[in-house]
């Protein structure tokens, strides 16, 4: 038995950009919370700067971004760039929303861990988060 106790996974969720489609991000936030993840939902209309600042303050393991406006190829690379600049590269970034396949390939190339499009089951997303962070939160 380890001396360090297990801790909870911490995830920041946010809507970046100007669109207000928040059904998905709220349902996912609640599903993660119900699965034992500590979720901080930053809310609507977040800029990349606000997201990265919140991630720093909240000391999270992952960031889940939701976008439905088509601005993902502008805003998501900005978030990744800011994380890199501030040395926060251990933070896992995943996305949800209306995102075409072609852009998914591109986004994964630049460091997005996973992209969940409409119709993804909650189970899939919860499993992703649990698996991705398992080694961080479980005491060795």
């Amino acid at each position, binding site marked *: 038995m380890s001396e360090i106790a297990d801790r909870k996974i911490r995830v920041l969720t946010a809507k970046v950009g*100007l669109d*207000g489609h928040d059904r998905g991000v709220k*349902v996912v936030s609640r599903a993660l919370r119900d699965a034992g993840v500590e979720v901080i*939902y930053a809310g609507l209309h977040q800029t990349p700067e606000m997201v990265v600042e919140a991630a720093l303050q909240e000391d999270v393991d992952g960031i889940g971004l939701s976008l439905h*406006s088509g*601005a993902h190829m502008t805003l998501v690379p900005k978030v990744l760039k800011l994380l890199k600049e501030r040395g926060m590269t251990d933070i896992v970034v995943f996305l949800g929303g209306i995102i075409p396949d072609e852009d998914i390939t591109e986004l994964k190339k630049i460091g997005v861990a996973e992209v969940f499009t*409409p*119709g993804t089951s*909650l189970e899939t997303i919860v499993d992703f988060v649990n698996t991705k962070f398992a080694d961080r939160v479980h005491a060795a």
Partner: protein
Amino acid sequence: MAKVVSRPADRKAWDDLYAGVGRSPREARTISGVPLQPLYDPADLPAGHFEDKEGYPGLAPYTRGVYPSMYRDKLWTMRQFAGFGSAQDTNERYRYLLGQGQDGLSVAFDMPTLMGRDSDDEHSAGEVGRCGVAIDTLADMEVLFDSIDLSDITTSMTINSPAVILLAMYIATAEKKGISRDRLGGTIQNDILKEYIAQKEYIYPPAESLRLTVDVIEFCTENMPRWHPVSISGYHIREAGSDAPQELAFTLADGFEYVRASVERGLHVDSFAPRLSFFFDAHIDFFEEIAKFRAARRIYAEVMRDRFGAANPRSLLMRFHTQTAGVSLTAQQPLNNIARTALEALAAVLGGTQSLHTNAMDEVVALPTEKAARVALRTQQIIAQETGAADVIDPLGGSYLVESLTDEMERRAYDYFARIDERGGVVPAIEQGFFQREIAEASYRFEQALNEKKRVIVGVNEYVEEGDDEIEILKITQDMEEEQKTRLAEVKRTRDGTEVTRTLHDLEAAAGAGGNLVEPIMAAVRAYATEGEIIETMRQVFGGYRETAIY
């Protein structure tokens, strides 16, 4: 108390057969969770149901349709929402559509325009021209409607927080072409309450926003007899995850709040009520949706007559636009979305809609390609011309199921009205997060049911296939954003700065004084003040708004 109809004699025999040895029929509920019997018969409706609750189309209680002849006289309007890129791109598209015989335009604005931000605002980065057309100043509006005769068409503008500014730009554009405001026909969505409840495109606090909505209603009532000053929308409430009774109840509650506020402003209910219109979602649960539309008409007529004392029969008519449910479409096996949209559109038609937008199969991944948009429009034409669905008025009227469900929708809506009243009305209920919480609960319940496979979505949690259908995707270039910023800079360079400052100063004073703001906004628009400048000027007086997120 309604008189009960006794069960037909054979019912007992059928009950025995249904529950026969070795059978275990499954339970069923609508997508909103309304329990369904396996069968309905005359005893499910109270005596006198036809006379009290159904009646004839074009007559109270309007359950069966707002017009006496419905689609026998005129098919619903096939109004497909479109817009992207610059004002010039969209203008070309509009001129093409009008050349093809379309008689109405429906303007989709980009996110910065919807949120009252200019294209050069830092929050607009990556969003300019993406989900719709970018409009910063009157100059863009002039380009958008260049060479289009605004006295000859109707225009629908889907915009809310900055609605009054876009309406002022439209009027100013028309007046420059020599067309007076009283000759303009169209609709502006201008439904701010559902923004707090669902779509979240708010800028100011609810009470101040409601004042602007009523300013537009008052202005249109006095100046624009052919204009619909507000389109009270349930679509966004449903898409945000509500169920059908919530969509019905919250939308009607919003509508009644606009009526109450307009009457409080001093308008007579019959002076503006005939120009109010509604906008609903057509979701995938076929009979429940039809029941929802029928219940909406009945409730509206009753409340307008009994609570607001409307005497003009036209004040009692709920006319509505419908859009099929974007939220029901799936990124998996996207061709299946054509079938979903067709069934939803059929429900809207059987529910008696006045106009209809059918979604394209690819809208779940991007704006539609031309091919996908064409299939969507053709779907409506197939329903209209091939299926016979438009040949008989309210063809499901008298169905034991549909009438029972209609009554159930009505009951659930009135229950919600009571709960909203207990909270002090719509605005206090918004501030208390009541609607937001109810919707979040409903959408979570639905997702859980999917997860537990209590509900099936084909291609998502059943009949899943590896390797989806390949479909083409519409790409929008990013050059547009820089071009629009250059155009905006040019307008700012050439306009009369003193006049901009003067009109914005007047607007700020008028906002503080409490008068109707349409004319002061129109003066600023004519001076080529930007949308963002006008919004910021009012923000100085009204303040901003942030919601407490509930999930």
